[in-house]
């Protein structure tokens, strides 16, 4: 199985490195849910709820946010320049070494 390493800092500030598969079509929101991290993913990955809001801490190259994602981030709270919706970031080799932090519940 193809895997990459991803570091996730939870809302308590605890950082942990995980192995994540790249061949299952998972996104960051789905990965967090699978890891039983406190990410709700309420809308199921349609960029419509911001419950998977994360801050990207590493400098991995990411796809540009879509209009839907930008719209949603406009209605979210605690938004920073490095804010992204986890559901819009699909796991692939380029994300090896990615570091993210879960944004506060808003």
């Amino acid at each position, binding site marked *: 199985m193809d895997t990459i390493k991803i570091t996730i800092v939870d809302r308590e500030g605890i950082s942990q490195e995980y192995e994540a598969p790249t061949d299952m079509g998972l996104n960051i929101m789905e990965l967090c849910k699978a890891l039983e991290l406190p990410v709700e993913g*309420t809308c199921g990955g*349609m960029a*419509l*709820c911001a*419950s998977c809001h994360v801050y990207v801490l590493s400098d991995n190259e990411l796809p540009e946010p879509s209009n839907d994602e930008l719209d949603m981030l*406009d*209605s*979210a*709270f605690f*938004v920073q320049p490095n804010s992204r919706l986890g559901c819009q970031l699909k796991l692939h080799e380029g994300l090896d070494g990615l570091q993210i932090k879960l944004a506060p519940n808003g």
Partner: protein
Amino acid sequence: MAQNQTIETDIIIIGAGPVGLFAVFEAGLLKMRCHLIDVLPQPGGQLTEIYPKKPIYDIPGYPSILASDLVTNLMRQIEPFKPGFSLAERAESLEKLEDGRWCVTTNRGTKHLAPVIFIAGGLGSFEPRKPPISNIADFEERGVEYFVRNPEMFQNQKVVIAGGGDSALDWAIYLANIAKELTLIHRRTEFRGALDSVEKVMHLAEIKKIRLVTNAQVVGLHGNGKLESIEILHDTDGNFKIEADHFVPLFGLTPKLGPIAEWGLGVSSNAVEVNTFDYATTTPGIFAIGDINTYPGKLKLILCGFHEATLACQSAFKIMHPDKKLSFKYTTVTGIEGLPAK
């Protein structure tokens, strides 16, 4: 709808999303009447509120159907069974009556009486997204409004709207002519609403009908018993205060499980536990169907919710008519026999 009305029916359905709507059809085939309660002002739940123009690909028989079209079709499908609706009302409390029936009371005081309840609440009831300001709850109904219910109340008032989407823009334009002062605060410089609305807001800002504060957010609320001023944090200018009688944060809606969580049903991680025989909860007479329930192997699919609604109706019939035998019939054979209007 009049205040403190009492509605009697066979099945109270909490949530008028696709699964709640389809339950009316299956109940109707068994001659049971339904009444739906939903916090939103229109039926359809998430499909209408969150993604009306998105296609759904896994409704059997429809290679692709827009969410809003599925709701329209479901409404047509249940029309013969004349369901009742309590819309824009939130199911608030649950009570067992002496005659064995349940009573569900909404936030507007409407009482619903029935022997059976289907909870088809999806992700919960849609509530406004509230900005993370520590004392915001202290000013709710004392200056903080999450909806514009009655624009007239803002006449000659100092109003601050926050948000960057269509509803923030539309209300800023509308209230600019009613309020004494109107301030629109947005976190960024760009607005993502309809171009036409953005242009109107910019024009109203130029002629000083709207005070536009961008790259800023509201971080504090102040007042003695009622809102008097708000504190703004600007990205470059730092903190400042402006006078305000009303603060209207418009950041859209988000679903919350809400009062149902307090009803003593088995709830685990925001879902109601049910068995997979008939999707009954641990409380006799109360079923949970669709996204709100959980059981081993649960998938949150509309398709699965339809199945759950169908089986729950079989058991609802047995509760309603303990002495009658239910014989299974195909609609192809029997057709649809509607219920008379009540």
